[in-house]
């Protein structure tokens, strides 16, 4: 059974990665998971300086989902290089450095610094970040900004450049097309959806920042529709993300157009989910008589035209 796939010449041992922010820096749960069985590890988003993150409360459970407002707490790219990368280099899985920033220059600086290091297979760019120059407007909800970030980063590296799109836009496919044109090698779809919850007795938002990002099984139907929408317009690989708990969930993402998937929230429940999903994908492909898990990619049959914008809801 062939399980591997590649992006810009970098081979991933299988099609299941762990999502940024949901697997720490890869060393926290090494006793619990054989991380070398993963297709890859996306690090927590790295910014130039360390970030403390948001005040508590940062986590709220919702029906079949959770809200988070971590505020991209991270140790910063320098500490990452010194404290985390040496261990990550010893692993036999693809390390994807996820980068977050509040200016285009910061994205470039972080990537440039990481370019000088050994052991990083590629970059995933988190554009669900406030652009300080624009009064905090989210980069990722502005198609031009998204294109610019991609275009500025592209010449800085020969490694895979993966743009991670936000679902909080009207037509995510426009953003996918823009980053493909600007030279991205792949898109990750999706980051969290904006949501909130209220403590009705205290009459206060439960999260310190009022709103936060919704993830988990609750969002899987939305994530699938977003991946499907993107798959109609781009040729570059799509990495499907959103509420994946089982191999069956992952198959859904492959069928609608994802070349690989990432496991997010499920890691909090069982950090071995990624490994189990990879095993399950292999088993499923076997029962389907396939020789390559990749044969599931874009293999959904549908005789009707894509209907996201055309249906009566």
């Amino acid at each position, binding site marked *: 059974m062939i399980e591997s796939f590649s992006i810009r010449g970098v081979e991933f041992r299988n099609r299941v990665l762990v999502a940024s922010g949901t697997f720490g820096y890869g060393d926290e749960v090494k006793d619990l998971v054989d991380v070398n069985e993963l297709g890859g590890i996306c690090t927590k988003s790295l910014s130039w300086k360390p970030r403390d993150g948001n005040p508590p409360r940062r986590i709220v*459970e919702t029906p*079949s989902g959770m809200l988070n407002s971590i505020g991209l707490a991270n140790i910063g790219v320098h500490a990452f290089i010194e404290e985390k990368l040496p261990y990550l280099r010893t692993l036999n899985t693809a390390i994807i450095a996820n980068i977050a920033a509040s200016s285009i220059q910061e994205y470039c600086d972080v990537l440039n610094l990481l370019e000088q290091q050994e052991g990083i297979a590629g970059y995933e760019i988190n554009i669900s970040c406030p652009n300080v120059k624009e009064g905090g407007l989210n980069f990722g909800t502005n198609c031009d900004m998204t294109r610019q970030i991609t275009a500025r980063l592209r010449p800085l590296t020969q490694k895979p450049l993966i743009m991670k799109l936000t679902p909080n836009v009207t037509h995510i496919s426009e953003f996918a097309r823009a980053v493909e044109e600007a030279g991205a090698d792949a898109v990750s779809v999706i980051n969290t959806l904006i949501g909130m919850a209220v403590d009705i007795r205290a009459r206060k938002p439960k999260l310190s920042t009022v709103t936060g990002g919704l993830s988990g*099984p609750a969002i899987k139907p939305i994530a699938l529709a977003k991946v499907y929408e993107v798959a109609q317009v781009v040729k570059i690989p799509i990495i499907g993300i959103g509420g994946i708990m089982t191999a069956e969930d992952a198959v859904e993402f492959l069928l609608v157009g994802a070349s690989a998937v990432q496991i997010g929230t499920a890691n909090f429940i069982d950090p071995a989910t990624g490994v189990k999903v990879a095993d399950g994908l292999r088993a499923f492909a076997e029962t389907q008589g396939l020789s390559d898990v990749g044969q599931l990619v874009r293999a959904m049959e549908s005789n009707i035209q894509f209907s996201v914008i055309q249906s009566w809801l």
Partner: protein
Amino acid sequence: MSNQHAPIIQTIVKVVDRREIVDGIFNLILQAPEIAYRSAPGQFINIRCGEGCVPLLRRPFSISRVDGELIELMFNVIGHGTRMLSSKRTEDTLDVLGPLGVPFGIAGDYETALLVGGGLGIAPFPFLTDFLLKQKKEIVTFVGARTGRQISERHMTNVHVATDDGTRGLRGTVVDLLKKYLSGKPSKRHKIFGCGPTQMLKALSELASASSVDCELSLEGDMACGMGICQGCPVERADGKKKYALVCTEGPTFNSNDIILR
């Protein structure tokens, strides 16, 4: 505030017994040898209460007592997860991660340990009591609850009681009770171990520093992972180095001097 990494184990454990010990408070006894043998008072386990998506996340519970291969939990029904736990039966199984977190710092030249628990904050005390007795410490336990019916003294020693409604012991908070006890006693001979709601811990922490008694606190808080990978459980640090510590891996126990409660 140590950063030690005890090896965490994920295991399927069997429910040995479940009973309601006092009004609304349940004991769950699990056969969990790998966890039982490696855990220390103040640590917790993270339980998957059901199989589906609701509740989605695991639920953290202090290890209330260890008896050979068995670990005991003490909890009350708050929401979905604890309701599911309260209906578990003998022979049911549970998916458990543990032991998690940093145990209480029991070192120090104190003679008497003052265990101060509000509500379900007493959960870790049976385990802590066993441990301290082996260290030949004297123990005085202070238990606060809303009402007398919710007081359990199981596996605790030398228990003083305060209730909000005055139906048992002092009418007032458990911190009031401790204050009364401490007045006039030499502070260096004591160490406080506190567990309960944040506002109670805040009051306790203030009393401890006012009376110069060393004080360990065990915090609760919302956790998504319980193992340091989500950054979801910050508590403010007192030193300036970093703004926050993680309750799940750097706590849940902290020396009261190391953190700022709000």
